[in-house]
C-alpha cells in the first residue's frame, strides 16, 4: 500500500471510528426513527390511506425514508465531526500532516457517506422483513443513491467548515434540510397537492431526489428520471468544487 493510500485510509478510518464509538446515537437512533416512521405512517396511517398511484402507501413512502436516512446521516455526521474537531483543535493533527486538500475533503465526505450508507442499508434490510419492497430499476437506484449520499456528505462538510458553533449546524439541519426533505414528498405524492403547493414543490431539489429513489425501487416517478439524475450529478459536482476550493484556501480551517 502506498503512503498516500495509508494516509487516506487512516483519515477515513478516523471518521468511521468516531461514529462507531457512539453508535447508539449515530446508527441506532436514526434506525429506530426510520422504523417508527414506517410503523406510524405505514401501518397506522397506511391502512386508512390504502394506495397511492396503485402502490401500497407503506411501500410508497419507504424509498423516501431510505433516502432520508442516508441524506440526514451523511449530513449530520460530517457537519458535527468537522465542527467538533475544530472546537477541540484536534483537526490540526490532520491539517499539519502531508494530506492534500483533496484527500482531506474526500476522507471527511466519505465518513458521512459511510454512516449514511450503513443506516440506509440497515433500514432497507429491516423494511424488507416488514414489507414487500421491490427493486425495479437497480441501474438508476444505485447511482441515484450514491449521488444523494455524496451530495449530502458534501453539504455536511460545507456546513461543518463554515460553522462556528453548534447552533449553526442546528440552524441548517432544522430550518433548511428537514423542511426540504419533509416537503419534498417523502410521505405523499406531490401530484395530489393543491396549488400553489404543487408548483412550489417543483422548486424543491429534494423532490427530484426522492422521485429518483422511488423510481429505482418502485418504477414510479413524477419527474423526468434522466433530467433529475443529470441535475443531481451537476449539483453534486458543483458542491464538490466549492468545497475543494474552500479546503485549498484553508477557509475557516487554517488561520
Amino acid at each position, binding site marked *: 500500500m502506498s503512503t498516500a493510500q495509508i494516509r487516506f485510509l487512516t*483519515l477515513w478510518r478516523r471518521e468511521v471510528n468516531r461514529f462507531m464509538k457512539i453508535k447508539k446515537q449515530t446508527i441506532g437512533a436514526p434506525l429506530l426513527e426510520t422504523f417508527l416512521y414506517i410503523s406510524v405512517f405505514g401501518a397506522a396511517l397506511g391502512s386508512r390511506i390504502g394506495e397511492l398511484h396503485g402502490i401500497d402507501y407503506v411501500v410508497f413512502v419507504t424509498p423516501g425514508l431510505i433516502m432520508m436516512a442516508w441524506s440526514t446521516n451523511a449530513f449530520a455526521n460530517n457537519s458535527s465531526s468537522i465542527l467538533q474537531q475544530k472546537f477541540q483543535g484536534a483537526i490540526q493533527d490532520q*491539517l*499539519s500532516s502531508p*494530506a492534500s486538500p483533496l484527500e482531506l475533503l474526500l476522507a471527511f465526505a466519505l465518513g458521512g457517506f459511510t454512516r449514511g450508507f450503513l443506516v440506509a442499508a440497515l433500514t432497507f434490510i429491516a423494511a424488507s422483513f416488514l414489507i414487500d419492497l421491490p427493486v425495479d430499476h437497480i441501474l438508476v437506484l444505485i447511482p441515484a443513491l450514491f449521488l444523494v449520499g455524496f451530495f449530502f456528505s458534501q453539504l455536511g462538510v460545507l456546513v461543518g467548515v463554515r460553522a462556528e458553533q453548534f447552533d449553526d449546524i442546528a440552524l441548517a439541519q432544522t430550518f433548511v434540510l428537514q423542511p426540504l426533505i419533509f416537503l419534498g414528498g417523502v410521505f405523499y405524492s406531490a401530484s395530489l397537492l393543491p396549488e400553489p403547493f404543487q408548483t412550489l414543490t417543483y422548486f424543491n431539489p429534494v423532490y427530484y431526489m426522492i422521485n429518483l429513489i422511488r423510481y429505482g425501487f418502485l418504477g414510479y416517478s413524477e419527474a423526468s428520471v434522466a433530467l433529475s439524475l443529470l441535475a443531481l450529478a451537476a449539483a453534486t459536482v458543483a458542491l464538490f468544487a466549492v468545497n475543494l476550493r474552500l479546503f485549498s484556501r484553508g477557509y475557516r480551517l487554517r488561520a
Partner: protein
Amino acid sequence: MSNHLALDGAGPPANERALHIEELVKRYPTGVEALRGVSLGIESGGFFGLLGPNGAGKSTLIHCATGLAQPTSGTIRVFGHDAIGDYAEARQVVGLAPQELNLDWFLTVEETLDYHAGYFGMPKRERRDRTRELLETFSLTAKRDERTRTLSGGMKRRLILARALMHRPRLLILDEPTAGVDIELRLELWHYVQRINREGTTILLTTHYLEEAEQLCDRVAFINEGQIVAQGSSAELTSAYGVTNLEDAYLALVGRQELSRSQLEGLVS
C-alpha cells in the same frame, strides 16, 4: 542599545538548513499583523530557542511553518522544501507538539498515536512498533486503551509529545511543552529531547522558562511584536545586552529591567 541585533552570520545555504524563513509576513483579515518580515535560520541538528512575550508571534510563526496558518508573504523552507509549494514534503519531516492540548476526545491513547502515524503514511507494523516504543518512553503504556479526555493534564502533555514524535520527524517543534507540567515530566522530557537532538533531530523550542532555554539551546532568537529583534547564542545575547544571563537579556528586550532577579535581591537585602 539597538533593538535589532544581527548576531546571526550568513551561515550555510538555505537548502542545508532545517528551517529557513525569509521576510515572513502574516496579516490576519482583521488587519492585525502578527509577523512583520521575520527572517530566521535554524541549522540542521541545532537546538533553537524562540523566546518572546505572549502575543509576540511565536505560535503564529510555528503555525505558518506547519501549515496551520497561511503566510501573507515571505518564504519558509523546511530542509530545502518550500512549506507552501512542496507542503507534503515539508510537513513530512516536521513534528509539532502544540501549546494547546488539542487531542481528539473520541480516540484512545493508542489510537491517537496510530492515526497520527497513518496520516504520515507509516505502514501498520511500523506504526505498531513505534506506538509501543513511545508509550513506553512516555510512561503511557498503562493508559493505552483510555480515551484521551479521561487523562490528566500531564498525561495529555506526554501524549502530545509522543504524537509529535510518531513519524520520526527531522525537525521537532515544541511550543511551550512544559507549561503546567510537573518537575518529573519536565526533566524526563528534556532528557529525551536532548538525546534525540544528539542523535540528529533538530529542535525548535518556545518556552517562557528562560533558564531552560539557556541550558538547552545552542542558539536563541528573541521575537517581539512580530519581529525578530535579536538572535545568536546565549553568550552572544547576554554580551550584546550587557547582562549576565538570558533572563536579564529578555527583560532588557521588553524594557522591564527593574524585574531582574539581581535588582529584586538587592531590594530584599
